[in-house]
């Protein structure tokens, strides 16, 4: 005997929402899913009409659904946004080159322009070359740092006002767990912010902050949105894997755990605004968390040199371990 949707009470329920345990039908699912993202965007006042917004797209499930939902909401609620797709090619053969094909398809499907920036172009090092040099440990550190900058540089080239990424509630909960497990207070305070920006960088936000990964996958499945899905070949030893396993086990027992962890993470967020390095008497105040500019490339950093420059220095000098490990924690 099929269960009926608790919202419309007409159609057959096809999904049990992890957030609320409600059993809902396909149509109601699409409606609440899209509406919740819209509310997240409105409540956090993420955009204003006329903004040019780059959707960071990897071809994976989150960014594919993000491209679809942003295009839908932009039209439905007249956000007045000028949307485009921005992809980063880290140079991972067999992984990234395949997923980029998906983004190229998305470009045609949603009719929004695509720009691809590559590590090779920006830094002279592809991930394949980096992994060859340093092996399978700590390579995610390089990739994450480089990718963040690559997105900013790509966005600057496109002249956008805003970047949106597909990070979902599960991702943020994993990050909170990782930061707690590693005792990284400064990151813990920053990681649940829906929007991050300083004076120099293009603001970026996470419209899926309150969206469960399970619902993103189900949305893509029901709507038949095609995406690329393989684990990055260089990631098996990533620390995040442990946090993810823990989170998934917790979700089995109590699905609201994911939202609860994000909420706990928010409670740690500092209420003091970050101040500029040159506004402060350096000898009197600790420099952790104060934002300034890299002496070499001008990118934002809380140190003298930004992390990407330090990592690149290490790679180019044949001493890639320079920036990895306790001495480099910031």
């Amino acid at each position, binding site marked *: 005997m099929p269960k009926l949707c608790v919202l419309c009470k007409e159609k057959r*329920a096809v*999904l*049990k929402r992890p957030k609320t345990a409600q059993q809902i039908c396909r149509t109601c699912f699409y409606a609440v899913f899209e509406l919740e993202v819209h509310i997240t965007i409105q409540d956090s006042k993420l955009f204003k009409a006329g903004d040019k917004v780059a959707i960071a797209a990897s071809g*994976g*499930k989150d960014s594919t659904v993000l491209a679809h939902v942003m295009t839908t909401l932009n039209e439905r609620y007249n956000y007045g946004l000028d949307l485009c797709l921005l992809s980063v090619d880290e140079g991972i053969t067999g992984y990234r080159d395949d997923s980029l094909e998906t983004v190229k398809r998305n470009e045609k499907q949603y009719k929004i322009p695509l720009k691809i920036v590559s590590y090779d172009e920006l830094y002279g090092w592809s991930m394949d070359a980096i992994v060859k040099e340093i092996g399978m440990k700590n390579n995610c550190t390089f990739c994450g740092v480089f990718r963040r900058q690559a997105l900013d540089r790509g966005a600057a080239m496109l002249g956008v006002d805003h970047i949106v990424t597909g990070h979902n509630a599960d*991702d943020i909960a994993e990050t909170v767990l990782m930061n707690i497990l590693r005792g990284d207070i400064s990151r813990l305070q920053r990681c649940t912010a829906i929007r991050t920006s300083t004076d120099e960088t293009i603001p970026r936000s996470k419209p899926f902050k309150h969206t469960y990964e399970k619902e993103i996958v189900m949305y893509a499945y029901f709507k038949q949105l095609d995406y690329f899905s393989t*684990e990055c070949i260089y990631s098996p030893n990533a620390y995040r894997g442990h946090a993810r*396993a823990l989170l*998934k086990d917790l979700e089995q027992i109590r699905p609201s755990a994911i939202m609860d962890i994000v909420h706990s993470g928010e409670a740690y967020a500092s209420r003091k605004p970050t101040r500029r390095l040159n506004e402060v008497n350096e000898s009197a105040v600790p420099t952790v968390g104060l934002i300034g500019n890299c002496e070499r490339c001008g990118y934002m950093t809380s140190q003298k040199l930004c992390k990407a420059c330090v990592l690149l220095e290490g790679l180019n000098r044949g001493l890639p371990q320079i920036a990895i490990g306790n001495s480099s924690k910031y």
Partner: protein
Amino acid sequence: MVLTVKLEFSGGMELLFNNEKKKTVVLPDTFVAGAATLLDLLPWLRDNLLTERAELFMQGDSVRPGILVLVNDADWELEGELEYVIKDQDTFVFISTLHGG
């Protein structure tokens, strides 16, 4: 009565099952219509169709957390999960969420 089921694998699950995204299988006599459940089917899939890395498919009696299961296009949580009784021509979809987005 013979039980025939349709299987679909996506989100990367297909890599564990010989790269086949869709497959129809006729279950052996040990699967009795009206009695056989998903609790019985999962280990059978692991032992007969899985081509590698069983630990990425199952954890204990159930699927590894992070793998979504659909029964005739509906969330298996609505159908009793492992206790769901298999009917002839049922479709089961296994979607992995354990990869980058």
